[in-house]
């Protein structure tokens, strides 16, 4: 899309766009290129020279049980986070949409977790669930259940899912509420006059009309679960116990920085790059279509 009216300067546009282009090239494309390049090497044991191995890093990864399980973990994790977070947010949004008085106050109280860093969310929930002094394990112990997410993989996953979903509820809530408020009231009223109950109205009319928002949030939440939850995992479980909470992005960090296997880490980065690209393309394609509604 272009404006009909443009200015005629020769060099000014270059000057204006230069800072972004420079930063983009230096800090985006150059490293991305490096990642692709490095993914074709493995470091030799003494760290002196890198050996060219072509796509071996990739083939190794795809057959590596740890990588595969990491893939699975990530899938499970994002599904849970997305599902829980979006459902809860939708429910709250529907509630908030029903009332007129006090809607603003509720909204204020519900959106501030958006401002909390995932890492901080991790700390907060870690404190709540700390096996020795946390208040929730204490209650659970009184009912006969001994919580220790440092030992139990399932509990660890539960904890990181809760912490991650908790944080995202606000964001989803905001968008769902906006989506609900943009549905013309006359449609709802027409349905009510046609005899539909609240729950029927919701599922047959409101929910379908909300589908652009839902789809958009689905993609955003998945991206969030894939990438931004690093802070949660790193603060609470460090990927454990026994890698049961090692999501893909965590593995890139662990293998690359802790394990110093740059080739594998780079290869993993490239795979993640493909995943993001696909998700971004889907998101933009859909948004393009949404604009034409």
């Amino acid at each position, binding site marked *: 899309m*272009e*404006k009909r009216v443009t*200015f005629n300067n020769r060099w000014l546009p270059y000057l204006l766009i230069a800072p972004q282009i420079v*930063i983009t090239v230096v800090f985006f494309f150059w490293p991305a290129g490096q990642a692709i390049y490095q993914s074709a090497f493995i470091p030799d044991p003494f760290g002196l020279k890198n050996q060219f191995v072509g796509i071996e890093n990739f083939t190794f990864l795809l057959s590596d049980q740890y990588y595969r399980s990491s893939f699975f973990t990530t899938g499970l994790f994002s599904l849970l986070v997305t599902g829980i977070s979006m459902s809860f947010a939708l429910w709250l949004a529907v509630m908030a949409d029903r009332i007129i008085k006090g809607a603003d106050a509720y909204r204020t109280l519900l959106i501030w977790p*958006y401002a909390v860093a995932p*890492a901080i969310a991790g700390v*907060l929930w870690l404190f709540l669930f700390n096996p020795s002094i946390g208040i929730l394990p204490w209650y659970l112990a009184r009912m006969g259940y001994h919580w220790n997410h440092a030992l139990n993989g399932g509990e660890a996953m539960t904890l990181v899912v809760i912490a991650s979903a908790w944080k995202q509820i606000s964001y989803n809530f905001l968008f769902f509420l906006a989506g609900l*408020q943009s549905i013309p009231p006359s449609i709802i009223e027409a349905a009510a006059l046609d005899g539909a109950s*609240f729950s029927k109205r919701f599922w047959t009319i409101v929910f379908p009309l909300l589908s652009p928002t839902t789809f958009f949030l689905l993609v955003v939440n998945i991206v969030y679960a894939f*990438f931004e939850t690093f802070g949660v995992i790193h603060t609470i479980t460090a990927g454990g116990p026994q890698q049961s909470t090692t999501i893909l992005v965590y593995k890139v960090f662990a293998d690359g920085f802790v394990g110093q296997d740059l080739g594998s880490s780079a290869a993993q980065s490239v795979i993640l790059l493909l995943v993001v690209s696909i998700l971004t393309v889907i998101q933009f394609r859909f948004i393009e279509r949404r604009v034409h509604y």
Partner: protein
Amino acid sequence: MSAMVENRSLGLWLTHLALIIGICLICFPIYVAFIASTVTQADLISPPMPLVPGEHFLQNYREALLSGMSAPVWLMLLNSMIMALGITFGKIAISIISAYAIVYFRFPLKNLFFWLIFLTLMLPVEVRIVPTYEVVAGLGLLNSYSGLILPLIASATATFLFRQLFLTIPDELVEAARMDGAGPMRFFVDVLLPMSRTNIAALFVILFIYGWNQYLWPLLVTTDPSMNTIVMGIKQMLPTGDQTVEWPVIMATAILAMVPPVAVVLFMQKLFVKGLVESEK
């Protein structure tokens, strides 16, 4: 705006109840953290911890701010503030002028540049951490504010937001400005910028939070504790293994880490919500 056509008061009451329950669930962790930050370690070590605030608010917070654990929290707060503001202003500044160039000028290679910027949407920092680290190290920017800020500055989303905005500005305004004798930069400063005020404000909130909450990148780029930001620095305070730590101080730090971004969101709530919802469209 209401999907509820029937106005039965029972339904209304239940709705309010549901919302209040929702709020309690959401606020619970913060509440607990706040309590923990006002009591003593002894109170916390043997559960259940008290559920009302204690007496040690000032003491704990002072200790956190002044000594912290590896670095005093006030220093970490400062670092976070510099990083967050740097990222925020940096992103807004370079995105708005790039969007201006793309929308209001015609020049060779424009399409190439446009696509270069667009592609960065597919490259969140988590996807390129190792090589970006190497580049930053190579440029000697480890343990520096520039190293913290620069790699996070180029943002396609802000550029697109401004582009959308500029495309809705009537052409006639540009022509009138040309008639009045305004050149491109004059037009930008005198007309375009003031008209973009609300979007810039909304973006400010979103970007500040994004910048403040950065975790992975500061973790990698800082090895000197005096450069820690508060969000990543808090991890170092957490116990590893059987170490005993001063939980009240940790919780106080967590609360302090949340105050600036939450304050920003709450103060600029209206603008922020509007901007967030519109910008993603």
